[in-house]
């Protein structure tokens, strides 16, 4: 379900167009968070965006830094405010109404 707000860290330093947003993976039965650009799909392991997570296969599909599942799989979704708080990232993000 689409959220009435959009949580993002900042504009993407790679494509300079997309928003780096928090996406969570629940495939391993615990919350794994990462930051992904919604335009060029560059992935970082945390909102400090210092460490990039680059998939090693040739599918060119953004994947979970922990389990490797596609971040577009049903087990993954855009984080809501509660999940951002659980990850301890609330003070690193901006919230915009959509």
């Amino acid at each position: 379900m689409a959220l009435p707000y959009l949580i993002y860290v900042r504009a993407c330093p790679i494509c300079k167009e997309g928003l780096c947003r928090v996406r969570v993976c629940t495939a391993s039965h615990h919350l794994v968070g990462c930051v992904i650009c919604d335009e060029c799909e560059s992935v970082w392991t945390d909102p400090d965006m210092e460490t990039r997570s680059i998939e090693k296969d040739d599918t060119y599909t953004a994947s979970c830094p922990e389990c490797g599942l596609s971040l577009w799989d049903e087990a993954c979704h855009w984080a809501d405010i509660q999940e951002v708080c659980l990850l301890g990232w609330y003070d690193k993000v901006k919230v915009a109404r959509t």
Partner: protein
Amino acid sequence: MPRSQRPSTESMANVLRVLPARWAITIIAVLIAYVLLQPRLNTWFGWQLPSIPAMLGQETPKTKNTPASKQADAKKQADAKTSQTQSSTTEKPKSSSGSFKFGILKSLGRDRYESPAGLVYGPGSEEGHRLQHIERHLQDDPTRPGSHGVFQGTMEQFLIAIDDTYRRARGHAKGTRTRNEEAETIYEAPFDESIGYLGGSSGSGQKNPPLKRMRVVVRGKNLITAFPIP
């Protein structure tokens, strides 16, 4: 032959028997000339002359090309075009054997398509396919935070502009830029005229200025995204 058509044929034969031979020959000659000329006259002058079988009730006459029927035909064509456009832009791209997706993309199988410049459009992104992902840049999203480059044109024109950017930037043409990141290569190229405008909340705040450059992000030969930029 249906029974209902016999009387008219027979009555014509009876009329010919009663007429003098000279008249009968003249009528037959006129009929032959009409049979030969009727389709050509219809084609040349846009007339709707009925054929002899149609006049004898052996063929369903064509619908007259009245303004009303013309309008209906035009509407049908427009609807067909619209539905074709909608299906080509909103549905998941389908492999069409022997034809090109959006006029220029060659199917590689497994839902992957190759452009004339060699860019590959495949499954991926939140939308499910790169073609659907870049399609977001054919319209504005004024509530989106930051900028959102909008290409003004059709999907086919967008794909051609992306190919043009990729080709020129790889050839180090004047005004182009190439940047290598860890996994991506980012190409930029200028255009002589505006190709779109700046959308998003940033664009609407600046009264949507026109954009004359394109940025293309690829991984290997796989297109990730593309959009007009300032």
